[in-house]
Every structure is written in structure tokens, then in C-alpha cells.
């Protein structure tokens, strides 16, 4: 795969929905430790809805697929993750205009999405949020774009970076979101939002590698 087209975007959403469904209980359990235990249910509800919403969508490019996914998450998820993931994907999707998106297009789109997320939630890397997984993932995509890496490899690098970023949230003290209420007790647990972000990037690698 050298670029994302409509079908690949839809496949991404479907794969992400599958991955989150399979890991929903795990995500909720992570959230129970430092939050309110609903992150898996929330993401599952949103992505299951999004998968159905984009399934029959007539779109001549990946942009509308991501926009639709983002909008579905906004209107189905609620909580913190709904607006954040919704904004991420809606903003990214709006940036993708052609029938196909190369690695550089995708990197730029997700950077825009990430910036919107950071503006909305005021989280910086290190605050123990989904930004900690998304930020290195976008950086990895940008680096791959600069080097002309094909999508499959770029997505693989992004997934690995996201997983590493999620893992790196374990020793951090949360400064944003519900986990921040726990103060020092938030240390020692993986952030559920970072974990779900890693799942999303891993799903992208999975469908891009085909």
C-alpha cells in the first residue's frame, strides 16, 4: 500500500472497531484503575457506530470517511474521549481532499487533528493522556513522509511509536482528565486513552500492511 483510499479508510475504521471491541474490557479496566471504568464501553459504542455509518457511505476519498467517523464519535460517545477522538478524526478528515492520501498527506492531516485535540483538551505530552500515544505516532509518520517510506512501513512505525508512548504513560502522574483527581495514585497505571490510541494506530498498520 502506498496510499489510503476510500476502501482503506473504511477498512481502518472496521479494524479499529474490531480491535477496540476485543479489548473493550481491558480498556475499561485500565480506566477503572485511575478513572471511571467506561473507556472501553465508550470507544466500543463509538467505533461500532462509526463502522456502520461509514459502511454504506458514498465517498470518493478517505477524507469523508474520517469526517464521518469523527462526527459519529462526537454524537455517540460522550465523556472525554468522544469529543477528543471525534475532533481528531473530523479535523484530520477535513484535511484530506483527494481520492487518495499518501503518507505525507496522512501525517499532515493527523498533525492537524492532534493540534485540535491539544487545543481542546490543553494536554501536552507527558500529561498522561491519549496525546502521549498520538504525539509520537504523528512524529513517526512525519519522519516516514520525509524519508519516502511506503504507507505500510510508515503505519507500522507509527503503531510502534504509539504503543511505546502508551507504555510510557505508566510511570507518569496524570495532569489532565479524570485520572488527575487521583494525584500521585495515578502513577503506575497505563492511561486508557493512550492505550486505545495505540490500538487505533495498530489497526492502521494492520490494514496498510495488506
Amino acid at each position: 500500500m502506498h496510499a489510503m483510499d476510500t476502501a482503506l479508510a473504511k477498512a481502518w475504521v472496521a479494524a479499529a472497531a474490531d480491535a477496540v471491541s476485543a479489548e473493550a474490557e481491558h480498556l475499561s479496566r485500565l480506566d477503572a484503575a485511575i478513572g471511571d471504568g467506561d473507556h472501553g464501553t465508550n470507544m466500543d459504542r463509538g467505533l461500532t457506530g462509526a463502522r456502520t455509518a461509514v459502511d454504506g457511505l458514498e465517498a470518493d476519498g478517505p477524507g469523508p470517511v474520517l469526517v464521518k467517523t469523527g462526527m459519529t464519535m462526537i454524537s455517540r460517545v460522550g465523556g472525554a474521549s468522544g469529543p477528543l477522538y471525534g475532533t481528531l478524526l473530523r479535523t484530520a478528515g477535513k484535511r484530506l481532499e483527494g481520492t487518495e492520501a499518501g503518507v505525507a498527506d496522512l501525517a499532515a492531516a493527523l498533525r492537524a487533528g492532534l493540534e485540535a485535540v491539544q487545543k481542546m483538551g490543553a494536554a501536552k505530552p507527558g500529561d498522561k493522556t491519549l496525546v502521549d500515544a498520538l504525539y509520537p505516532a504523528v512524529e513517526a509518520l512525519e519522519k516516514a513522509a520525509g524519508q519516502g517510506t511506503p504507507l505500510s512501513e510508515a503505519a507500522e512505525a507509527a503503531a510502534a511509536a504509539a504503543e511505546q508512548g502508551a507504555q510510557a504513560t505508566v510511570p507518569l502522574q496524570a495532569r489532565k482528565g479524570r485520572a488527575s483527581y487521583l494525584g500521585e495514585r495515578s502513577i503506575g497505571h497505563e492511561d486508557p486513552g493512550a492505550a486505545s490510541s495505540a490500538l487505533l494506530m495498530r489497526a492502521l498498520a494492520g490494514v496498510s500492511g495488506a
Partner: protein
Amino acid sequence: MKKFLNTPESYLSDALAGLAAAHPELRVDAENGVVARASGPVEGKVGLVSGGGSGHEPLHSGFVGEGMLDAACPGEVFTSPVPDGFLAGVKAADAGRGTVLIVKNYTGDVMNAQMAAELAEDEGLRVEQVLVNDDVAVEDSTFTAGRRGTGATVFVEKICGAAAARGDGLEAVAELGRRVNAASRSFAVALTACTVPTAGRPGFDLPEEEIEVGVGIHGEPGRRREKLRSAREIVGEMMEAILQDSPLESGDEAVVMVNGMGGTPLSELYLVFGEVARVCGDKGITIARNLVGDYVTSLDMEGCSITLCRVEEGFLPLWDAPVNTPALRWGV
């Protein structure tokens, strides 16, 4: 998990169906996530809406009615409503003079409400938001998501509801709500964790003889775990945290709520209130009004929260004004 339910997934809609059956004076729209007065928006009155995750009943749907809310937006259990939910609430409340939207300070609630407010304004509706953030258990709040909104929500809803009912304008009602919030402080303690239906097990394990101090209302663990002590000692600690941060001074009057989290017997709440009254007496604070009971719950959690609101100019007549809702009723 032992609960009266049909399936974990239908818990919320089944509970809302029961609410509808019990209260024909409410219009319950489970699909769009709105509970509103059946009689519709009140001509010439500023609308008052509050919303948030479910599982805190009677908050908010139990406070819809004359002298209090026009509409409540119940989200999924412990999950902020989506923007469409908040928007549907605003639309159910708006009678042309604008709507005050009361939002508890949680990342999700704030973001979804903000999106709803923008959508509403796109449709030409005026919305003022009042953010509630009274929980002093969150200490280093300036670097984080800030303080949580808990018990003070009831005070804001009651007093703003009365102000709207007497005809106050949009900005005035919102400003009053902000003053009530600024005058209020809360602190909560849990004896047990609650069980979210879809999770099927308690949010955390709490050994016999230990309590969570500084818990929120979403089943999250508290600031720290301590040995269970006497009610007098626990209340002493809660009151110290509240009074250290509160504008209350000796000679002041306060409205006090001792709130059960859903699984706490009323007799224990009265016992706690007795201890609160003792501390207030010692500190020279007069309890002008009080509420003792379940108002802002966390499903089946055993625990309680204490909220003190300093009485300021104009608060008491609005507190005493008639209210006729499922969960709060007087003067009517």
C-alpha cells in the same frame, strides 16, 4: 453483581421508563437523552438545564420541575452526554429568553457542553454556561483538569431555578449560579466502591476496615486510603478540608448538605449531620438550611459527601422559594 435490572445494556432506558411511568409531569425522551417538564418551556422565563452522566440519581432528572430545572440531559452511566444530548436539553428549555446550562467540571462534560453551546448558538439560541467545581479533595487543581463538580450542583440548580422562576434575566441567573458555586465547597468519603452495570464488578477493591477519602462521584478511587475511624473523626477531617478552603468565617450562615452516595442508610446520614452541626457550632457557623439524604449519588456506593455553601445576599429567599420536583419539594 446484584442489581434490579433486566440487562446491563438496558439499565438506563429501563430506569428512564420507570421514571416516566412514575412522573407524568415529566416528559422523558430516552432516545434523545432528555427529561423535561411535560408542560414545555415556560413562557417568558430563562431556561435552566443541567446534565451529565447517569448514575447520580436523583441528580439531575429528579430536579426537573417548577422552581428548578426545565430539562435534564442524562448521559450513559458515568459518561457525559454527547453534544446532541445537551443541545436537545437546551431546546426543550428555551422560551426565547436564553438558557443557562449548568455543567459539572469534568473534561468530558465541559467539552461536550461547549460543543452543544456552539451548536445552539449556530441555531440562534442564547446559552450561558455555569461551571460547578466545588470538590476540595482535588488539591493541585491549577495544573490539572481543575476541581470536580459535585454536591454544589444541587445548590446551583435550586437557587438558579428560583431566580429564573421569579423572572431574572439570562446573565443574572448565570451570574448567580457562579456566585453560589464560588461560595460552596464539598468533600466525600466512600466506604465501598460502586458497580457500574456494564462493568459488572466494583470499580475498586476496598478491604473491610478501610475507606477511600476524597472520592468523586464516578466510582473513581479517592485521594488516599485510610483506616475506618469513628464518624466524628471522619467528619472532622472532611470539615477541616472544606473549611480550610471555604470563604466561610465565624459568624457566617451556611446551607449544608449531607448527601448519601446511594447505599448509605438515612440514619447514618443524620448521624453524620449531627457531627457536622457540632463542628459548625464550634466554628461559629450557623446552619441556616440543610438537606440530609440522597441527592448526588454514585449508583450503589456506600459513602457520603458534605457540602457547605456560605449564605450570601439574596441566597436564602431563593432557597426557600417554592420547588416542586420529584426529589425536592417545598412551598407548593
